[in-house]
């Protein structure tokens, strides 16, 4: 039987069977967090590295986790921040401005597009033109059907700003699909 978030947190904080509870947490959220990060970072190995960092930080931060907030959104928040930090670090290493929206993390990152049909390839390419934060917003809304209120907790932005960001992202993608 899968443990609830409350049970997982309580068990980890109590120290009793904390390893087991933490394993349950990883197994419960690993896929969702993986895809959330992967959508922003694209490369699997980098995603793996970032995801592991997310869980290590989660383990360290759980003692201070306030249970009035949602574990699910808290994890997403860590994952989003870690992904953006990673991307900015990579940009810095490659002497590329953090504000450069067209930067693609890896020259070979488009390899995954091989095998996609034409329209899917266009969509993926359109997504890569979005800034990282906007791509995260688009992913949470379009692919994961997250509520704006949850997204607001994840990215620490108001619901209104998120709606605007999503709409802009949608329009950019639509424009790309039509133009290309």
């Amino acid at each position: 039987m899968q443990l609830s978030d409350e049970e997982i947190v309580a068990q980890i904080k109590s120290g009793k069977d904390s390893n087991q509870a933490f394993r349950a947490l990883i197994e419960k959220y690993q896929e969702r967090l993986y895809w959330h990060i992967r959508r922003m970072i694209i490369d699997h190995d980098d995603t793996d590295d970032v995801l592991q960092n997310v869980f290590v930080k989660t383990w360290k931060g759980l003692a201070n986790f306030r249970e009035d907030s949602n574990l699910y959104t808290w994890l997403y928040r860590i994952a989003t921040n870690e992904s953006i930090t990673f991307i900015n670090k990579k940009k810095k290493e490659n002497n590329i401005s953090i504000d450069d929206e067209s930067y693609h993390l890896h020259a070979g990152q488009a390899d995954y597009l091989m095998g996609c049909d034409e329209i899917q390839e266009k969509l993926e390419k359109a997504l890569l033109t979005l800034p990282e934060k906007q791509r995260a917003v688009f992913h949470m809304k379009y692919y994961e059907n997250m509520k704006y209120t949850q997204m607001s907790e994840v990215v620490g932005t108001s619901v209104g700003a998120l709606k605007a960001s999503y709409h802009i992202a949608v329009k950019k993608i639509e424009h790309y699909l039509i133009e290309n």
Partner: protein
Amino acid sequence: MNKENENIENEELMKMAPTLFGMTKVNNLKAPKGYFSNLADTVKVRIDNEVPDGYFENLADKVIDKINKEETKVIPIQKRNIARTISVAASIAAIFIIGFLLNQNNIEEEASSSNYLDNLTSSELDEAIDYNEMEELICYVDFEEDFNEALQIENSINDIDLDFTSDEIDEYLSSDYYLDVEY
């Protein structure tokens, strides 16, 4: 998200981006096979091997504290065991005399070691103190005085013409004088 909200958002999407709206939601990215079945173990290994938070912040203080404690370590000096000192001195003197008689060529080299203790650095002495048991330390401290005394004897012997034959040496070793030396 409830159905009503979902419908509203879909309508909005359809108006804003009809091409996107008409597309199937497909995940074109792939994760390696078996990746998720090992992730929890991988993370556990990483956590177990993490350097604890704040470790490096306190490391310098810990090292300095440790050094200070070691420098101020009090080493009690026990009362000298006079009988033991005498016996050690006698033993060393005998060793030097016999050594001199049996191997004159080594005398100069051995004499040069008389400055050994003077030449030791304080860190070498500390190392020796840490390494040896207390009893050995006391012997060592006593030995320094005895060693100097023995060298004086040795130097005085140096002035004597000691051109012994092997027969004379054998005779000396079997003599009462040699056998009467107390240890």
